[in-house]
């Protein structure tokens, strides 16, 4: 039982990084950003290339891990900012309906995935082993160092994000724009720069997720399709809410693992659907909906 909850949580931790990157953009532009999946695939490979071309032989172990993660985060930021420029900037100045952002993001996701397929897909790749593969036993559950690091790093990344959002001027600007663009402008905040910054943050998270996915699951172009888990989690969590996305992701992880134990893995997706349906009927605003309602 405890073991299963732990599995669920660590799976949820992976999902939550994705979901938060996803929710960040929703927070500002109010659409589900499916290009986030493309960013994850892209950065997973970028991190790998950085390892092969730059860091290999220079650093090892944890230092290598940090180097790769940082590179991926930077590449992710740049990619996401580029995506905003190519896919959404014009739509914003045209004040296009949200639906167009959505379509644009799906197309960009496919585009990135395809770029990887063209350049990197006649073989499998994987990251080097960053950590000792020893298991740690704790409270009757056993988990690997990599798992632990994933959990730790996800928490740290989310913590850093929350710090940025709630303790820095940039975060203040992001939250302000998310509430009302015009009023934010009156405060002297440039919405374009805030949107770019948001994409950069989201991209950095995408980069970190990408490395984790690559590290745990090896590299292949469709890696980023795991973005759908982020989508589910952030909708359950209450769209646009960062904490909601985290809770939604952890919940999704636990539910998935729990269902595998209960009904077997074959029926799991169908059961997840039914649970999701019932949940949305009972609580159409998602978990964090309470907070949203209180605001009104």
């Amino acid at each position, binding site marked *: 039982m405890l073991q299963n909850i732990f599995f669920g949580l660590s799976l949820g931790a992976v999902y939550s990084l994705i979901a938060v990157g996803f929710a960040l953009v929703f927070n500002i532009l109010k659409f589900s950003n499916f290009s986030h999946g493309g960013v994850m695939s892209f950065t997973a490979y970028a991190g790998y290339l950085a390892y092969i071309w730059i860091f290999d032989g220079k650093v090892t172990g944890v230092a290598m891990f940090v180097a790769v993660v940082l590179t991926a985060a930077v590449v992710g930021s740049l990619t996401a900012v580029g995506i905003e420029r190519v896919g959404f900037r014009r739509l914003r100045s045209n004040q296009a309906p949200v639906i167009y952002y959505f379509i644009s993001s799906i197309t960009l996701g496919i585009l990135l995935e395809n770029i990887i*397929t063209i350049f990197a897909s006649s*073989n499998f790749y994987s990251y080097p082993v960053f950590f000792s593969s020893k298991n740690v036993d704790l409270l009757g559950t056993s988990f690997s160092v990599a798992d632990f690091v994933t959990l730790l790093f996800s928490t740290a990344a989310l913590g850093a994000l929350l710090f940025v959002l709630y303790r820095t001027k940039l975060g203040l600007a992001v939250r302000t724009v998310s509430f009302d663009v015009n009023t934010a402008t009156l405060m002297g905040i440039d919405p374009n720069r805030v949107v770019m910054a948001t994409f950069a943050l989201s991209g950095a998270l995408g980069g970190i997720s990408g490395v984790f996915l690559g590290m745990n*699951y090896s590299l292949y172009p469709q890696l980023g*399709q795991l973005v759908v888990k982020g989508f589910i989690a952030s909708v359950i969590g209450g769209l646009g809410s960062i904490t909601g996305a985290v809770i939604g992701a952890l919940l999704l992880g636990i539910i998935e693992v729990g269902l595998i134990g209960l009904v077997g893995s074959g029926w799991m*997706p169908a059961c997840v659907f039914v649970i999701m349906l019932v949940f949305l009927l009972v609580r159409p605003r998602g978990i964090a909906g309470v907070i949203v309602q209180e605001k009104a």
Partner: protein
Amino acid sequence: MRNQRFLAKTLLVIPLIWSGIAMAGEIVLGNLQDLSGPTSVLGNAVTRGAEVAVEKINAAGGFKGDKIKLITADTKGNVQEAIKAFTRLVDHEKAIAVLGPPVSNIGLAIAPIANEKKIPVVGSFIDPRVTVQENGEPQPSMFLIQPTSVQYAEIIASYANEKLGYKKFAVLYDQSNAFAVSMLKPFKAYIEKRGGSVVAEETYTKSDKDYRAQLNKIKGAGADVLYIPNYTQDLVITVKQAKQIGLNLPMVSGLDAAPPFASLVGDPEATNNIYFANNFSDKEPQLAEVRNAYKAKFNEDPINKAYLGYDKVTVILKAIELGGGASGPQIINGLSQVKDVQGTTGILTLSPKTHQPVGLSMVMYKIDNGKYQEIGRYVPESHK
């Protein structure tokens, strides 16, 4: 509106201009592969292997003086795309034979068309339904150059059961993956016929990335061995997570455990005590030339699908020789007569009754602490 009409007209005209017309003295082989979909790694490997073969033949003056032209069409891993791509290769590019994909679903989808058009497809789609119809007749145009999933699964099952002495099996497979599913049923049937049993059967689907809950259930089931007939990227996750939860069972798998699998895992302790059956042996002399040519051209090691791609070209050319001409029906005729042809993956004999190879052995390997050890070719008694 005028612009749009112009656009539409232009779009309609382009395919007519782009007509592929086969040149005289040229043999056009179609290559139907997944270049951009979920199994693009496999499709790209087949393509590169085939390119190596074609390049080698053309460099030596072509096949009986005719240059070989390989035209590759992408299926996106999607059967509807595959149908379009296949008809294009045949009707438009005038391919006289097609190198099939290593994916059975696509084989199943194009079989009716290939039969109708009498264009042979030589593939590595292991689902026996691709090559043999429900009534027991062979699919006239479909040929397989590696063991079927039944043969393949039986080779693995037989080895695990008879050579290694395992009785109680656990299985973990991707329920949404046709390859994995097709490798499961015959395996179970073979094991159960021999008095063994499957004590735990767990599944996952394509979008799942965490199998620890399943592995944990398997852990408590008291199995001797774990059978994992899945794609490479899944195997990587499986062994890593098995180690994490302290599941120390030996494992048996298909050729997806072949290199670079162990190096992808990168953890010798996790890749321990794993047996698998592959199509080829690195030690066999016929391989070296292909491997070197491949490495020289693409600067990477070929994976097993690349050898199969190479062999598909070899077999088709052999069939042209045997059938007496380079037309679809002649090649089909020739393919039924393929006997004792040396391929990179073994000595091929195709049965005219099933269009499947007969008595093709596979090469057993063991991974010990991340190191591959070749055990040798194996074929169960019942296949001989």
